[in-house]
């Protein structure tokens, strides 16, 4: 395909105010003399063909780099006869720095590599957080990876293995951050690299890290191992700033937008325009802190809540993550080591006990939460449930032993 194809349908996506990916594709196709120009001409032709026929024309295959079994998404065209130069159009998934920070020097180096070896098309970022270097033929996959690897970047996950992870901006810029998200992400994921690069799990395994209940990286729903920041002591209140908010929003405004929106009715506006907080009722949902950013902030005893088993539809329907650790303080190096160990235990239990193509959440649904908790060595806690069981169909002949266990734990905690 020597000439740029006619793309009347794609052309329509160049109109309108939002930046157009089609304009980008065309710019690359117009780079006469560059190796990616013919690839992108061909790709434009195939994409237009998809728009005309309303069908996709890529199939998978097997492409990898030396030493790894995952991280490259192979794509071969089913219409290569008509669009030969993009007949191989593989993607390299590359793990971004935690928090997705870049300097322009590194971005320019990435562009140079991809312009030389690939299509010149890069997505920042995929749904799991990968930088996606899209469009490479089989021959250039190894060369591209070697060049990116020399820059200090590594392939991400694909297939039945540990996947690339995300953390929110967190401690780098957010005062609501309750732990060092980037550090936790790097320690946990870098400990699992073997299961990312040489995947041999029942199915994918994702971990995500959010600094508070606002969960800016969607950990609860989109990860098998969700780490959410929270705190155990009282919300910090600057009453002078509260009064300023009352002066600005009005008493009704503060009542409507803050007090009455508290999910556990833990807030009350005093007659002197100070805020009263019943911290025992607070579930650290972040709402009041989000509204009154200057007046309220998380407490000092910061740590994490950990949930397991979130995922999207396949196979049994959507599952939210479930609390497996209500709170663990994150302060010392040992706390971060503890997190790494727990994630490893969960991953190992999943590797040994899940069925083929079963996610952590589905495994928990099949074997029951109790067996899962037993398997990973965690004690039960009422924070793990929305409410206790409603069905009486259960054998309870071990009841007394379990009561003893609870009492011994409860007694030990009280004695501390």
């Amino acid at each position: 395909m020597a000439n740029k194809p006619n793309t009347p349908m794609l052309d329509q996506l160049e109109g309108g105010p939002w930046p157009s990916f089609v304009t980008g594709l065309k710019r690359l196709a117009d780079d006469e003399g560059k190796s990616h120009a013919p690839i992108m001409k061909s790709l434009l032709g195939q994409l237009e063909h998809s728009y005309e026929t309303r069908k996709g024309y890529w199939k998978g295959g097997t492409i990898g780099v030396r030493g790894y079994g995952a991280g490259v998404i192979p794509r071969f065209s089913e219409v290569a006869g008509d669009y030969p130069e993009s007949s191989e159009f593989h993607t390299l998934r590359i793990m971004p720095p935690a928090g997705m920070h870049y300097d322009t020097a590194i971005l320019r180096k990435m562009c140079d590599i991809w312009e030389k070896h690939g299509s010149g098309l890069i997505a920042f970022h995929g749904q799991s957080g990968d930088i996606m270097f899209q469009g490479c033929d089989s021959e250039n996959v190894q060369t591209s990876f070697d060049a990116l690897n020399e820059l200090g970047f590594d392939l991400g996950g694909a297939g039945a293995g540990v996947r690339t992870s995300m953390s929110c901006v967190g401690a780098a810029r957010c005062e609501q951050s309750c732990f060092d998200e980037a550090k936790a992400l790097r320690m946990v994921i870098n400990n699992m690299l073997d299961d990312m690069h040489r995947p041999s799990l029942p199915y994918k395994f994702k971990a995500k890290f959010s600094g508070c209940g606002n969960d800016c990286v969607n950990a609860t729903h989109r990860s098998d191992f969700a780490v959410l920041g929270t705190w155990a002591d009282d919300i910090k209140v600057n009453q002078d700033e509260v009064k300023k908010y009352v002066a600005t929003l009005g008493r009704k405004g503060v009542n409507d937008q803050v007090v009455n929106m508290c999910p556990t009715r833990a807030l009350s506006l005093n007659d002197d325009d100070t805020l009263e907080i019943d911290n025992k009722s607070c579930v650290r949902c972040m709402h009041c802190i989000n509204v009154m950013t200057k007046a309220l902030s998380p407490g000092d005893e910061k740590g994490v809540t950990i949930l397991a088993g979130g995922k999207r539809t396949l196979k049994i329907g959507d599952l939210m993550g479930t609390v497996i650790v209500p709170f663990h303080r994150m302060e010392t190096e040992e706390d971060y080591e503890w997190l790494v160990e727990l994630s490893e235990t969960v991953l190992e239990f999943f590797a040994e006990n899940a069925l083929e193509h079963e996610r952590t959440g589905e495994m928990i649904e099949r074997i029951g939460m109790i067996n899962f908790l037993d398997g990973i060595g965690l004690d039960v806690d009422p924070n793990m449930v929305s409410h206790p069981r409603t069905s009486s169909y259960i054998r309870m002949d071990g009841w007394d032993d379990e009561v003893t266990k609870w009492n011994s734990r409860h007694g030990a905690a009280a004695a501390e």
Partner: protein
Amino acid sequence: MSEAQAAPRMPDECGVPDPQQYMHPTLKKNYGAWDWHDRPRVGVLHHVAKSGDEVWTVKAGTQRQMDVHTIRKLCDIADEFADGHVRFTTRSNIEYIVADQSKVDPLIKKLEGEGFPVGGTGNSVSMISHTQGWLHCDIPATDASGVVKSLMDELYQEFTNEQMPNRVKITTSCCQINCGGQGDIAINIQHTKPPVINHDLVANVCERPAVVARCPVAAIRPALVNGKPSLEVDEKKCVCCGACYPPCPPMQINDAENSKLAIWVGGKHSSTRSKPSFHKLVVAGLPNTPPRWPEVSKTVMKILHAYKEDGRAWERMNEWIDRIGWPRFFELTGLPFTKYHIEDWRGGRNSLNASNHVHF
């Protein structure tokens, strides 16, 4: 060939890069020591550190799938205004962090001049998170980048303004596996017919037990067709989820006419106020019409307008619907309620109304 050339390069399993080396110096200096923030205008966040240092973050929309020329242009802007640093959000917006307030307005002017909308903060509709679609996925029934570009053109004013009751997150997915995720509004493909099987290919391409195991309703069983080992589908049982197609492409689920778009609302990931929630079906059967999918845009705008008009401050879409009730939602949006809205999947009875709580 020398010894050194002959030895293959093995990967340096360096893992996740340390962000500190790329981080804006003011962020690095005040890591973990921020005090408060506010939003001076749409698209700009202002963070103040305990040290007294201040940064302004200017957020701009991108097309996510970018050519190197676009990325270099974004880098030029960062070099000129933001000390050569940027970061990306999970919804593919780019963030420029500026320690000098006087650079904020010129930066905004520059970004807008180059065609990058500034916004996406607070109660705006942020960039749509999406999947790969026809550009790169091996199982898509629709495009993703195209649907998103068309919608974001429509939503431009909602990205560059903060006029919604609370933030709105939209996602699109080009098959029912739904990599795009949950959103206040999720626009997902809904396959409506069972897979069409090319029996000549199944035995060569598919690991048949794996395909049988993947069906959520046990509708697939091994069969001998035309003397060859293949698979058959009990079409009455089939829920047209497409789960068989990825491991067995000869079981084609995509169809130019019968792959439709469905719209779901009320997904919320955060634990802010209410607990996280799943998105719920509101419309199905919308045609898959490239290049601009006008039927989808029209429906999305209808839902957004109802929410914008009727939602109270800080109510996310699901919280608004919880307050007004589903009958009023269907009334305000003018959308029909059908038998297909009533859940019959696992645990479906939990979604039925077991009370005298009725909205009139």
